[in-house]
């Protein structure tokens, strides 16, 4: 790893510098994401299985009972793992340097609202320039905190339902309602917001492998997160953290 500050202007003009790759997700974050994603999909499938209409379930016949048994087991297992990985994430945010960087970059700031306004005006052709994003823009922050809040709500109501016999029916009714509604909200949000970001955006289509490699190339970094790019290029400490010379896994 080089120690000196990379001079963006001179090097790009000469066009002789080797290609750089930027770390968006480190190893721990990628593993956390993978576990979370697998649990999330399992929970969505096993959860919404309850809403399949009676007629459609007739095809299961006598296997229905077994299916239901494993549905319950899988849902609870995935829920438990998801709670554990979320707890680990909180630990990661507090005790790991990378986690602390993550949360400080993720914090809401005044400029997020300005960025939102500017982005929307750009989308609607009122403006010609795309705002300069830092490491995380309002899209990431919105999704991250929605997940954060939703995760807590689902975990609490889920645990209440798991230990149903100890609670009053009123508490359980509220839990069932919130658990179901939040599930609809979360799955729709993931489909509309996250799936679009990683599958359907024209430069990502058909799929973005960022969650496995954790890296993006310099071109994309400059276009998408210019402010962060400039910050990295001006600071050798950040370069150590964020720049890789080779594509693929760090």
């Amino acid at each position: 790893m080089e120690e000196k500050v990379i001079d963006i202007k001179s090097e790009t003009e000469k066009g002789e510098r080797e290609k750089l790759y930027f770390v968006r997700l480190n190893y721990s974050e990628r593993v956390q994401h993978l576990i979370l994603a697998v649990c999330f999909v399992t929970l969505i499938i096993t959860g919404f299985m309850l809403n399949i209409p009676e007629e459609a379930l007739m095809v299961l016949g006598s296997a229905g009972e077994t299916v239901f048994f494993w549905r319950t087991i899988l849902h609870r297992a995935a829920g438990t793992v998801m709670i554990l990985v979320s707890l680990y994430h909180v630990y990661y945010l507090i005790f790991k340097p990378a986690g602390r960087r993550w949360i400080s970059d993720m914090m809401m700031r005044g400029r997020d609202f300005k960025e939102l306004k500017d982005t929307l005006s750009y989308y609607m052709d009122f403006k010609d320039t795309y705002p300069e994003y830092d490491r995380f823009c309002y899209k990431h922050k919105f999704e991250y905190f929605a997940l954060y809040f939703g995760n807590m709500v689902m975990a609490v109501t889920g645990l209440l339902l798991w230990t149903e016999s100890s609670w009053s029916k009123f508490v359980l009714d509220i839990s069932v309602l919130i658990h179901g509604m939040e599930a609809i909200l979360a799955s729709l949000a993931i489909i509309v917001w996250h799936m679009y970001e990683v599958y359907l955006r024209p430069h990502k289509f058909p799929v973005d492998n960022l969650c496995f490699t954790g890296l993006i190339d310099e071109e994309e970094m400059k276009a998408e997160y210019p402010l962060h790019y400039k910050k990295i290029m001006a600071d050798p400490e950040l370069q150590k953290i964020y720049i890789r010379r080779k594509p693929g896994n760090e």
Partner: protein
Amino acid sequence: MPLKSDLFELIFILVLAVFPLFFSLDTVSAQPYEFRDSENCMLCHRYPTIGRFDEAGEKKIFYIDGKDYASSVHGKLNCTDCHRGLNRIPHFDLRKVDCSVKCHLHNLSTKKAFSHMEVVGKLEASVHGKGPKFELKPFPEDLPDCTYCHDNRDYYSTGRAIGRSDDQAHAATLLRSQRDVIRLCASCHEDEEKMTRHGLESIKTFKDTFHWQAIKYGVKNAPDCISCHVPTGFSSHTIRPESDLLSPLNIKNRLQTCSFGVGALTCHPDATHAFAEGRVHEYGTKAQLLTGGVNMEGRFRSLMTEQARADIAKEDLFHYRVLSAIRLIYKILIGCTIGFMFFHQLLDYRRATKKGKTFH
């Protein structure tokens, strides 16, 4: 040597003796009872196509499967023991089957003619009974008689096919499946109009409960109507109103009903009072009526409102209001959030594809 030949002889004889059994086994075990038919009804009723369209245009099948009938609980009875008044052909003088009549069987211990009178009396005293002869409950025609539940669904080509062939008067009796129990009860209790006449609400909200979701999958341990309303030790012929102290759903008996764990069902063995004494079915018409969420027209409005006031406690109403508020908040939240997201991404896509740019 003689020992050996003896042994062979023995085996040979044994094999010969057992051999015919292989051919006869299935016929022996499947040998049906024969219907005696001392009145010779089967002269006509053995023909599978015999039947008649009733006024509703439904074909009622008059064919009797003698072997099926003979293996049922009533298999030893003559036809006219239940179907009285069959003196003419065609049978225009047929009277409706009345289970309380005495039939020609005799109770072995008392030597008296057998009759279902006792259980009919119990049913008449229960919520499903029509009440005393001269003081009938309103709309007695809505209330079920014996044959409504113990019916012969095989004899209807369409329509009243409430469940599969089980628990019938003619065929061999098997217990109804959970879905069939629910279908049977729901055939009346989901009829909003019929229920309103009696100040009751439709039980369609049962299908919003977790109980139903398990039944949908055919989970044997999941409760149908009978499991809670007529648990072990109670009879479906003596269902009482919830306010009755002898009802398993009375608030004082609720814990015992919910924590049931004896026999095939294991329900909520570690249930607490707070858990067991809550509402099981989701809130329905009555709660909506009290909060002004439903517009009920017609002459039963006052009856329903009155009944709703008696049934839905103030606390329940508060619960209902809280749940409705949460549902509304979430609907707005989902609508706004997902709407915004969709709009945002649509704009992003438009802009990104418009100029043929690589990024945004």
